[in-house]
């Protein structure tokens, strides 16, 4: 079902961690890549569809080169994608990325304010750079 996009799209898979502030960041950062930064080069899938969906959905990471985006070091998204779909090209862990950049994790999983936009921007730019790297290498 995804074959038509095979050569020019990268799959972005966020963990979406609903019980974690960093999970909220994965959602906002990935949507920024999908909607604004690389709208023509990226597609996404809901991670839980690897269990709830059909074989077409489970083939997502075999069909597209993928980037997993985890909120924390449990790495649920990377582990699950590897186990049920295919090995991602890159695995981003937001808690580690923000630590590297000396940034704090936003305190609320419910809302991200304008103050936290910088964290969203950093994560989104990092993902977009990895999209470019994948498409350049082919």
């Amino acid at each position, binding site marked *: 079902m995804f074959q038509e996009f095979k050569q020019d799209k990268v799959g972005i898979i966020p963990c979406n961690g609903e*019980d974690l502030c960093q999970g909220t960041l994965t959602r906002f950062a990935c949507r920024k890549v999908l909607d604004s930064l690389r709208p023509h080069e990226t597609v996404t899938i809901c991670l839980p569809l690897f269990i709830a969906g059909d074989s077409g959905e489970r083939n997502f990471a075999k069909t597209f080169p993928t980037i997993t985006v985890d909120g924390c070091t449990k790495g649920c998204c990377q582990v699950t994608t590897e186990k049920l779909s295919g090995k991602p090209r890159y695995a981003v862990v937001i808690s580690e990325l923000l630590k590297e950049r000396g940034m704090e994790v936003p305190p609320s999983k419910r809302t991200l304010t304008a103050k936290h936009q910088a964290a969203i921007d950093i994560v989104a730019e990092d993902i977009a750079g990895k999209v470019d790297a994948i498409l350049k290498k082919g």
Partner: protein
Amino acid sequence: MKKKIVVIPCSGIGKAYGEIGRQAVYELIEDLRTGDVATTCLARLMIDDPDAKALIRDNPVITVDGCAKDCARKNVEFTGKKVDGAFRVIEVFKENRDLKPQGILNLGKDGFKLVHILARRLDEEITGLMRKEP
């Protein structure tokens, strides 16, 4: 120890329904049923995280799915747990077609009206479940 009601939203980010479900769960936990309700990341169930699995094994569970794919319910049931309640955001949306969320994650005024409607329904369901629980 007093049981909590575990309410698990789906991870949908393709349409506004997923975010409406998540925000309704946050409203329950932080405003309407503080102390009665817990949640966990759906993805933790997919890696067999022991704490997440124990939470849903030992407590009543309600799932909140954005769409008819029912990812949250199916992932909970995949662990062997039968859910005590299953909601779909799209049903609330169909009953309130005049309310149009602004965006997928930025829901806007109408989107948050849908959040409040769903949160109140979940609140009623939780009241019923807590009456049944010892």
